[in-house]
């Protein structure tokens, strides 16, 4: 199997889906000639032409609003918002129309679009280029919210998102774009939306994360084994909404202790919902308060101080140890 970066893997998914299905259209700022500012759409224009790979004017509501119209006509637009920090210009289009058209018309009209956009910090970027606000979309009924963590699941999830009959907001962890390579099969692979994945088994504590934060989380899990002889179970959420709380609760019923890790601000972040679900589903199994290791409730600082904002393996480890030390 070829080893790919997440950028390669996403590009492969787009190529293959566009080859298979002429309903799939890519549009956004600089996605054509430039191949996308992160090169995720590289080569698509050459292969599929201007009609299917569209360099749009600079207008996010326009990109999403016209994508909605295309989807209503039966196409499968995959639009790109260059950075998730600018996606709020399209908020009304997503909340008021993409998320509601099926509901509004009782299934007569549907909006099978994918909104791809990079999120996450850690790349020495300018302001508005490092936020993680997946909670906005996860709180919006009618949308699905997906975040891959590595090349292989990125490819599988993007294929599933493109084929999904409902609007999907697809956050790409830009810190992972070229951070490492993974074997990604040439032949088609999908991963069901709404399903989390246990990526590391363990009985002592459950660590829940997703996206770019999976790496510090897994590092912390490794160190727990090496340094403390503790076996952590690590779950990759993958789909923030609809949330697969069963997989999470099953793990917690086994371990009784939980640390949740994300870089989004803490208050009303995805971690809050995970805590609430676990309290609903596995309260009696909890042996310690659930800890949230997250971004702080501040604007993510410019890059000089960014590292201190982002959860690190050290921070996760410390929280895990405190959770483990809590007497049941």
């Amino acid at each position, binding site marked *: 199997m070829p080893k790919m970066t997440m950028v390669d893997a996403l590009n492969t998914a787009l190529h293959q889906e566009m080859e298979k299905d002429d309903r799939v259209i890519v549009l956004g700022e600089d996605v054509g000639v430039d191949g996308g500012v992160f090169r995720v759409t590289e080569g698509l224009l050459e292969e599929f032409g201007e009609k299917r790979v569209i360099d749009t*004017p600079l207008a996010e*509501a326009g990109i999403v609003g016209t994508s909605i119209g295309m989807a*209503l006509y039966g196409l499968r637009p995959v639009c790109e918002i260059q950075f998730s920090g600018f996606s709020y210009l399209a908020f009304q289009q997503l909340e*008021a129309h993409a998320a509601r058209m*099926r509901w*509004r018309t*009782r299934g007569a009209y549907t909006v099978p679009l994918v909104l791809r956009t990079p999120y996450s910090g850690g790349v020495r970027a300018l302001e508005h280029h490092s936020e993680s606000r997946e909670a906005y979309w996860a709180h919006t009924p009618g949308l699905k919210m997906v975040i891959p963590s590595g090349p292989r699941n990125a490819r599988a999830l993007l294929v599933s998102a493109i084929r999904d009959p409902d609007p999907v907001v697809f956050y790409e962890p830009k810190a992972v774009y070229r951070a490492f390579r993974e074997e990604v099969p040439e032949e088609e692979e999908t991963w069901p939306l709404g399903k989390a994945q246990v990526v590391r088994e363990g009985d002592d504590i459950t660590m829940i994360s997703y996206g770019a934060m999976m790496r510090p989380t897994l590092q912390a899990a490794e160190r727990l084994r090496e340094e403390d002889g503790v076996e952590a179970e690590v779950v990759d959420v993958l789909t923030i909404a*609809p949330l697969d709380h069963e997989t999470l609760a099953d793990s917690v019923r086994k371990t009784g202790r939980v640390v949740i890790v994300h870089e989004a601000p803490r208050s009303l972040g995805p971690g809050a919902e995970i805590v609430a679900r676990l309290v609903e589903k596995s309260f009696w199994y909890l042996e310690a308060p659930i800890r949230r290791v997250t971004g702080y409730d501040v604007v993510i600082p410019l890059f000089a101080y960014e590292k201190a904002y982002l959860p690190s393996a050290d921070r996760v480890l410390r929280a895990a140890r405190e959770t483990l030390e809590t007497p049941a």
Partner: protein
Amino acid sequence: MPREVIDLPYQVEYLSVLDEEGNLLDEDLEPEIPDERLLRMHRMMLLARRFDERMLQLQRQGRIGTFAPIKGQEAAQIGIVAALRESDWMVPSFREQAASLWRGQSMESFLLAYAGFYQGNELPEDVRNLPVSVPVGTQPLHAVGLSYAMKYRGDDDVVVTFFGDGATSEGDFHEAMNFAGVWQTPTIFVCQNNQWAISVPRYRQTNSKTLAQKALAYGVPGRQVDGNDVLAVYVAAEEAGERARSGEGPTLVECVTYRLSLHTTADDPTRYREEEEVEKWQKREPIGRFQNYLKGRDLLSDHDIEEVEREIKAQIQDAVDRAEQRMKDLRGQELTMFDHMYAEMPPYLQEQRDELAAELEAKEESDA
């Protein structure tokens, strides 16, 4: 050149065919419309007017909720859709009952939706209308996307989208016009300039002399027409439709009309406008003008009008009866709120549905 005036590719034209009495201003401009279509246009304008009056009555009786009356804007709507094909698409805002009825949408669909039943928005396959869009100015972008997709598929249909004078202030309107200009989509942008955005008069909405001229910002032709003159509107729509179908791209048509009724049934216009203004516009009311024109051509007699009125009245009564019967049948179907959120219901939503189901049962028992 140190200082030169740049000449712009398009001029903004004003178009009218009938005078206030309904006499032809200019024979050459009279569109060639088959008699039966002329008569259907008249019938639908009248139907829309009477349906509007009836809905207002139903709202006052508490049998339906808030809606936006169209009185006075029948020509601006029927003139447009009458010049288009059934296979074309329509993307309305929330004040296009006349246009929607012409295109085959049922009166029940409106009665149901305005009675609070989303089932009213489940439009039949063959009616290519989008449902009412409430967020002002957001729907033209859907029209541009639809028309792009048509072009991509090689279909020679066009998309017409309606919006108001106030909507032209929204950023989404700007982005829609700009995308349509760049992509040269087969889109007809119809602004029903009815002089008011709730309490905000046209002149407070924008400092531009016309709304039609806004098209110049996008390298798109703009036309202003007498929106209470159904023939002028028809001519403008026909021209825009031909441009669109022949690949010449979008057009903006400003229909200068007037909202003779309330903004919505929740509105009290006496707070912000003078009765004189309404009376002035009442004189230019579109249906009477059109009737005079048709009479002048011996296509319509007072007796015919009475006839049509009678038929319409019965038609509306049937629709109201059917709608209210349907409402009865739909009562108690609260659990449908969980349907159609997604193609497949996610587990947590299913749990919540069960929660509500249990609650509704408990309530029934306690009520029983």
